[in-house]
């Protein structure tokens, strides 16, 4: 279990000591009783009514997560590259972009896009009559945009570090093989940079999951939105929130597990 000090550590699974040490058995027993109490003494009768909605909510959350992470990463590559090797203007622009996005809360960006930009769009009949309007009047494009830009800014910094960290010798070697600049980038620089950044990228994707519930504040019905609905319908305080925490815990656990499997399949020799 290694900790990098510069970034806040993402979820790291506990070290694999034996689960059957005596004190752990006692702890597990206590937690078992706790879980039993929660199941037995709290109200869960609403659960069947909302199960279909919950599943579709989880789907929406995961779809948002993967779509924004993927597109965000595609944006992060040029942003990182511009900061390492771009002309001065591009470099300056991408630094500005990263500073602004990283320096302001995501919730504020989200509301700025949805309410601010949305109200400006609505003022122009040209936009309201265009073929894009059926999409622009919905909420998810704004959530998608905000989450994508956020991911792009954070990963842009990561990619900057990764590009800068590829040893010069490797690029010079590619050069001396007669590769064009584009070939060097495509065959050596980019793959090596992604390879270096992969653990951070995976960790940040898990962090991105934790940002997705914010889109519920602009009427996108993700799993958090469904749970809000349950809270409003039943006036229960704790039960829906506990379930929500459990759902996110499971999603995080699954993501961490899958990413670890994937990372293990990629050879890390020489990194």
């Amino acid at each position, binding site marked *: 279990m290694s900790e990098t000090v510069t970034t806040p550590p993402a979820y790291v699974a506990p070290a694999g000591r034996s689960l059957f040490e005596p004190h752990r058995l006692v702890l597990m027993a206590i937690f078992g009783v706790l879980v039993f109490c929660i199941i037995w003494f709290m109200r869960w009768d609403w659960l069947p009514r909302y199960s279909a909605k919950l599943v579709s909510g989880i789907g929406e959350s995961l779809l948002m997560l993967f779509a924004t992470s993927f597109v965000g990463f595609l944006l992060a590559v040029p942003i990182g590259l511009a900061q390492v090797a771009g002309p001065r203007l591009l470099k300056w622009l991408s630094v500005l972009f990263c500073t602004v996005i990283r320096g302001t809360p995501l919730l504020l960006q989200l509301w700025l896009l949805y309410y601010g930009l*949305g109200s400006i769009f*609505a003022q122009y009949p040209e936009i309201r009559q265009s073929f894009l309007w059926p999409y622009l*009047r*919905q909420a998810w494009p704004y959530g998608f945009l905000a989450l994508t830009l956020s991911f792009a800014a954070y990963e842009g910094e990561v990619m900057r570090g990764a590009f800068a960290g590829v040893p010069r010798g490797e690029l010079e070697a590619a050069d001396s093989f007669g590769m064009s600049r584009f070939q060097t980038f495509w065959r050596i620089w980019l793959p090596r940079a992604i390879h270096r950044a992969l653990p951070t990228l995976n960790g940040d994707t898990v962090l991105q999951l934790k940002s997705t519930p914010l889109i519920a504040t602009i*009427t996108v019905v993700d799993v958090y939105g469904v749970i*809000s609905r349950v809270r*409003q*319908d039943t006036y229960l305080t704790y039960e829906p929130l506990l379930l929500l925490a459990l759902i996110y815990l499971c999603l995080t656990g699954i993501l961490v597990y899958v990413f670890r499997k994937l990372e293990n399949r990629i050879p890390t020799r020489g990194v």
Partner: protein
Amino acid sequence: MKKALTIAALALTTTLAVLTGTAQAEQLKVGFAAEPYPPFTSPDAAGNWVGWEVEFQKAICAEAKLDCVITPVAWDGIIPALTSKKIDMIIGSMSITEERLKTIDFSDKYYNTPTVVIGPKDQKFDATPEGLKGKVIGVQVSTIHQAYATAHFGSTAAEIKEYQTQDEADQDLAAGRIDAVQADSIALDAFLKSEQGACCEVKGVVEDDPAILGLGVGIGIRKGETELKDKLNAAIKAIRANGTYDAFSKKYFDFDIYGK
């Protein structure tokens, strides 16, 4: 290191004690939604909350001799906030409904107004299930309007879209993201009179459904607090009788908001 741990624990508890020491115990916290809901509660540029309901709350607390402090909270968590004692009363345009009475208690009603549907001027439809066919209707969550729209328009409307605040629903109607908004007539009237509300007009009053639309707006309190409830009911009666209610209502409305 045991000692260090004790010190850390001690420091922690002292911090908490100092932090909580500033909290006062006797005041009654009056909760309402932390959002502009004119003409009932809205923040002004000086950071104060103003509106009809703020004046009503002041009059009630003065009449009942309660030490009240207004506490804006998130609307979607306002009932949990009451039951978990974050606040002690809700004076926030909350209608008395059967569903809510399962969880909390209410004073007698202090106002009652009809429910209307509004929509853009350039679209012609009325506030019936047929009229709203295929429309996207905006409502505020955890309101009687959400329950009503879901029950009566849910089968014909394209979508019932839920908003955390009434203001957001109004904003999205003005921005053309939704086709209609169902809400309290007075709150919508304030919106229609605003610059943004020029886009829209009242499409009609919805058909009454007392089971959902409730018995008017009351002060929400925790169950079992009968003493407080009696005090509040007496205070509502008193300010109705001595003219205080009419005096501050006149500043906002040209009709009797109390209803029949």
